[in-house]
């Protein structure tokens, strides 16, 4: 371009606030049904064991999702993904994990890759997640399921998955299971994430850091050794304040930042705990719960999340970066802390207005 006379459109922002498009680095949008009754049990003080004993948990959603026809599931996921865009997220990490069969999980990958091509959808980072739980047909045989799921990973990469995740806590997969699955994932070219949920297996976070995982997520109970391992390997952490609220445990985000650990943020939208698709709400909560400044939280929700996903072409506004931007209904970034869900006025993705 020689000069400004070649500009096709001029947009007057009117003195308002503009940031990069937000990046949700952790969510579970591919499911059918809801678990409101279960959430009500949580609210009354039920434990995870109580929920499982009552027949709830991930397996409930697996049953409903398996019984939902593909078109109904596709329409639900499309409508759900649109909510992220409306609240300012231009990139979303989207996990599979509610079919837990080879064909169902691979279909979820293809569904997400297909939806991403439609107008008005966020850009997606697709994470293959068969290790979300042990499916009913493998109850009592978790090792056999882990070996089976590992054999699906090369197909997942071929189907368009960007990464693989393993849920590792005392009621899901062991550190050894996670090490094996993540190692296979790396060997087929997938980015690797450890889902270090409510009560992570001892040593799992350190294993993931030493293995060179792309990110370790949630880390509600990370200890000092975990923190040092993450810091020494510069392994990114994705923190999800809505889940921390739900679990009533706060990850050591301030200490992670102070030790130089890269931090991203996510909604952890899922049918059992958190229904929010709003990264502006996540920023507000990160400021109030994680002792982050507004700029730290904004940075985590943009460049930090993009870094955790290995997407180095977004999350910042600089020459050569993707033109993913948001104009907010505010004239100062402090509004993120105050609003508990700042509203968007306009969203651009790749230079085009999509909201």
């Amino acid at each position, binding site marked *: 371009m020689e000069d400004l006379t070649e500009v*096709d*459109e001029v*947009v007057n922002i009117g003195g*308002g606030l503009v940031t*990069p498009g937000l990046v949700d680095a952790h969510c579970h949008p591919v499911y059918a049904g809801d678990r409101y009754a279960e959430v009500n049990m949580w609210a009354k003080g039920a434990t995870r064991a109580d929920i499982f004993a009552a027949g709830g948990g991930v397996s409930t959603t697996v049953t409903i999702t398996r019984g939902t026809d593909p078109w109904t599931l596709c329409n639900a996921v499309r409508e759900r993904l649109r909510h992220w865009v409306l609240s300012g997220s231009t990139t979303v990490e989207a996990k599979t994990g509610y079919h837990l069969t080879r064909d169902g999980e691979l279909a979820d990958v293809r569904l997400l890759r297909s939806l991403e091509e439609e107008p008005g959808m966020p850009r997606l980072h697709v994470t293959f997640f068969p290790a979300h739980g042990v499916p009913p047909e493998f109850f009592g045989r978790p090792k056999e399921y882990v070996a089976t799921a590992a054999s699906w990973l090369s197909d997942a990469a071929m189907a368009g998955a960007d990464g693989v995740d393993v849920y590792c806590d005392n009621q899901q997969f062991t550190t050894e299971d996670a090490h094996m699955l993540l190692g296979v994932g790396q060997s087929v070219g997938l980015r690797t994430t450890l889902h270090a949920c409510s009560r992570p297996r001892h040593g799992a976070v350190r294993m993931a850091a030493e293995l060179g995982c792309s990110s370790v997520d949630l880390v509600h109970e990370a200890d000092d050794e975990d923190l040092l391992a993450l810091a020494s390997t510069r392994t990114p952490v994705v923190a999800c304040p809505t889940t921390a609220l739900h679990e009533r445990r706060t990850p050591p985000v301030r200490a992670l930042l102070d030790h130089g650990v890269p931090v991203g943020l996510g909604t952890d939208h899922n049918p059992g705990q958190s229904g929010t698709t709003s990264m502006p709400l996540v920023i507000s909560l990160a400021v109030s719960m994680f002792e982050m400044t507004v*700029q730290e939280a904004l940075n985590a929700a943009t460049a930090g999340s993009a870094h955790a996903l290995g997407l180095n072409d977004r*999350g910042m506004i*600089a020459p050569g970066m993707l033109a993913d931007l948001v104009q907010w209904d505010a004239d100062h*970034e402090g509004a993120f802390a105050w609003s508990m869900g700042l509203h968007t006025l306009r969203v651009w993705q790749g230079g085009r207005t999509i909201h």
Partner: protein
Amino acid sequence: MTVVLLTNIGRLWTGIELLTKAAILMDDDRIAWVGHAAELPSASPE
């Protein structure tokens, strides 16, 4: 190829720094230029 200029941005968080009275030039799907609006004419990209 579409070139869009965003002007009169009161506060712009770039991910690197906070700018006031800023402008952004988008060239197709990429950011072509970002900075203080007053510097735009002389800094427009080639």
